């Protein structure tokens, strides 16, 4: 591999320029998502919209901390709506923003695929947070592949400072190239706190709506004209990135060179500080010339990128011998150790001497439904009636595992009802078919399939678990809570009326804390021929406010160690250390007990009581 001449862009250059571009007034430790929010505000964005989704949730929550007169921040009913709102703002001539997690982009993709044809008026940046390692998602798809499909540029910051800076840069690119821009974050970046120099908000002049039907209305004739423009834009962006300071060549030893992007860059620097590194801040379209030059300057080219071999394949396409996924996994999250062992495998670093010290068998501590969670009893009841349960996305997905084990499928936001309809339509299912869906998820994507179920006369039961919040992501408001992102009162969706309006004849509200009644209600619902909907109306005990009742107690003398209460999977209940006929008795942690009474209702020996009783 021929060695390239010295790089055109040096870290030194970029640093000087950045110092001129914005005046640093303060340094603060910010989490990646906080830095993104800061960047959105500083960039003069007027409208920001999102649907909560780990690890992206905190972005909009933090945007909402900035003054309302500066920026409109709102929870949208789903990611597509969020993007459409942002697109509308762009049309109207303001900088606009949308945030979502990787799977949220799937929902929003329909709008994105058109918007990429249309381009922007006010700048439009979409932050998409990927979740390598699947900390809290249903998959670990790589957004860069999506960007390639949509032919929109992707910027990838590697720390919080870059997160802030890249947002602002993103708007410049968006407006300069007439394109939406995706800024890709990952869980690690979003949730890492580091020092960030923050700046002031730069207000953007209002452009106003620009009437241009050929640009703004995507009908076939317009689209046909737009597509070549898109290809041309891609080319121009590639050229731009060849020289942009977003991509940085850090010269070092020439035996090998590492091309990396995003958070992986920090791992690389951690374990191979003296290597030659090409850090790509723009991972689509790739700066092919820059890459070629870099590859030519080193003996071996190693690509270190989380998830898909996007860079690696490009390098290979460019005709270089490259090592990437042969050393580093295509799945999971990277870490300094992963990078080190990959480089060691390549023979570039000495293998770390492993001196196993004390290595205890780790305790399984999977996430569980909280003590007092109203979903618990709903799933106990489902399990009892032996239902075929199509689950959905939310806390309640945890009911799929021990001890509740009451969910049989879980696909994507809002899928449960459609899945249930399909199960019914096969005629194969002998058990009652129930779709369970949370309030927020229902609004997100459950309403069209419910209409479908009614329209197509499915015989299913929908259990709408209305806990009055978006619990899984930490308690965000939504259209069904009566409060907006800024905590102000707004209209609340009346689920019962809505469902009736859809044409559901059997709708009943039930309190899942009342075990017997709930069970009965579920039985009635499943016996009904047609679509039946139960609205389990019981708020989350943690969000938006902690609802803690008096803690229940176990009367040790009455406990017979049957551990029926353990079926709740309640984290407040554990073994007391006492035995009854060889079976472990239980105790309740007063600190953790929320006083929901479910254990007391379940206990066959009446051993669980409120302490006030004598």
């Amino acid at each position, binding site marked *: 591999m021929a060695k390239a001449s010295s790089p055109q862009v040096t870290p030194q250059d970029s640093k000087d320029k950045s110092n001129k571009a914005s005046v640093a007034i303060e340094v603060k430790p910010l989490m990646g998502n906080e830095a993104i929010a800061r960047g959105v505000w500083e960039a003069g964005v007027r409208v920001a919209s999102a649907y909560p989704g780990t690890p992206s949730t905190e972005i909009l929550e933090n945007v909402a901390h900035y003054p309302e007169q500066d920026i409109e921040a709102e929870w949208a009913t789903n990611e597509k709506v969020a993007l459409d709102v942002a697109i509308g703002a762009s049309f109207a001539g303001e900088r606009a923003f949308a945030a979502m997690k990787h799977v949220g982009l799937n929902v929003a993709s329909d709008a994105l695929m058109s918007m990429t044809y249309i381009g922007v008026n006010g700048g439009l940046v979409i932050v998409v947070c990927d979740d390598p390692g699947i900390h809290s998602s249903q998959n670990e798809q790589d957004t860069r592949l999506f960007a390639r499909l949509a032919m929109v540029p992707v910027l990838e910051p590697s720390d919080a400072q870059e997160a802030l800076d890249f947002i602002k840069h993103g708007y410049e690119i968006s407006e300069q190239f007439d394109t939406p821009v995706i800024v890709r974050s990952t869980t690690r970046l979003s949730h890492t706190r580091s020092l960030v120099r923050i700046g002031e908000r730069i207000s953007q002049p209002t452009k106003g709506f620009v009437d241009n039907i050929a640009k703004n209305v995507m009908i076939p004739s317009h689209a046909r004209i737009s597509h070549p423009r898109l290809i041309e834009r891609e080319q121009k962006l590639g050229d731009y990135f060849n020289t942009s300071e977003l991509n940085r060549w850090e010269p070092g030893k020439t035996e090998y060179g590492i091309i990396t992007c995003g958070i992986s860059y920090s791992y690389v620097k951690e374990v191979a500080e003296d290597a030659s590194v090409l850090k790509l801040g723009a991972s689509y379209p790739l700066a092919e010339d820059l890459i070629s030059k870099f590859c030519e300057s080193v003996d071996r080219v190693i690509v270190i990128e989380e998830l898909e071999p996007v860079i690696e394949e490009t390098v290979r396409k460019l005709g270089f011998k490259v090592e990437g996924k042969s050393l580093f996994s295509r799945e999971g999250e990277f870490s300094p150790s992963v990078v080190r062992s990959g480089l060691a495998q390549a023979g570039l670093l000495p293998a770390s001497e492993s001196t196993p010290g004390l290595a205890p068998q780790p305790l399984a501590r999977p996430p569980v439904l909280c003590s007092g969670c109203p979903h618990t009893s709903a799933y106990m009841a489902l399990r009892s009636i032996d239902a075929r349960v199509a689950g959905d996305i939310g806390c309640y997905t945890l009911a799929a595992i021990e001890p509740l084990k009451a969910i049989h499928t879980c696909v994507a936001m809002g899928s449960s009802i459609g899945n249930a309809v399909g199960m019914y339509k096969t005629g194969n299912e002998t058990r009652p078919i129930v779709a369970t869906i949370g309030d927020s998820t229902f609004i997100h994507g459950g309403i069209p399939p419910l209409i479908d179920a009614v329209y197509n006369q499915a015989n299913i039961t929908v259990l709408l678990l209305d806990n009055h919040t978006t619990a899984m992501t930490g308690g965000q408001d939504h259209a069904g809570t009566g409060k907006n992102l800024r905590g102000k009162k707004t209209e609340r969706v009346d689920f019962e009326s809505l469902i009736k309006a859809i044409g559901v004849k059997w709708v009943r509200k039930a309190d899942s804390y*009342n*075990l017997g009644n709930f069970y009965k209600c579920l039985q009635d619902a499943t016996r009904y021929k047609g679509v039946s909907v139960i609205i389990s109306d*019981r708020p989350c005990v943690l969000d938006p406010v902690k609802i803690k*009742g008096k803690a229940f107690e176990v009367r040790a003398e*009455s406990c017979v160690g049957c551990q029926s209460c353990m079926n709740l999977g309640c984290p407040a209940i554990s073994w007391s250390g006492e035995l009854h006929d060889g079976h472990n008795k239980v105790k309740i942690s007063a600190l953790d007990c929320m006083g929901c*009474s479910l254990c007391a209702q379940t206990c066959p*020996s009446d051993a669980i009581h409120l302490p006030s*009783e004598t």
Partner: protein
Amino acid sequence: MLNKTKAAFEIRDYIREDLFPHFMCPGCGHGIAMRALLWAIHDLNIDKDKLAIVSGIGCSGRVGAYIDANTFHTTHGRPLTFATGLKLARPDLQVIVITGDGDCLAIGGNHLIHACRRNLDITCLMLNNETYGMTGGQVSPTTTRDRYTTTTPEGNYEPVFDACELAQGAGAGFVGREITLQTPSLKSLIQQGIAHPGFSFLEVISDCTEVYGRKNDLGESPQMVLSQKSEFRSDSYGMIADEVFQPRNVKTGVLHKSDRPEYAEAYQQRITDRVKK
């Protein structure tokens, strides 16, 4: 009375096996209550030969026949009267009455209050399934308001007895209530009731699944058993701010206990005093 070395409870030691399966309907709570009773008897080490089970008429009345003891299936509403005679004549016998809500509170209501008042050492186990199951599900003094029975086709409009309060008010020395779902607790309650020297009134929340449950669409047996707890426990509800859940205010457990003089003892005392004079 407790003997630590005794064998584990084996129900077949206490039943007339050749009569099984018993006549009760699938899911009938009376069977569960019967087990709890026999379990308590076992734990108290009561000699079967000295055990007298007196029952009335109705589904509850038939329970006694399956118990391997001295069993007396008497007339409708009157088992307490038979038991009174039996216990007075034979203080050495452990006399336990099994009765139902209609048997005990309607036709036998008079006997109940006077048995409570006298406080003779009898244990009265009232199996409350809220209906006259054997006669086809008519309204009883404990039928929940608005529920349907064959004699309340428009739903029950009569007020309901709280049998335990009634018994306590009438002077029973020991009053308790339990649900069949909580079998170990029920056993323990029965055990305490039998051990109590004086009249013990024990209400068991039982289920008539086939007749009453069907008529009122209360679900299958498991669901009816499950409902007992949430429907009947006042304390199953913690102080939740965003309240919706308000179960029926009926208490379980030992509800009343007093050391009023036991009838036979008081009688003997009085006689002795007189003879001394």
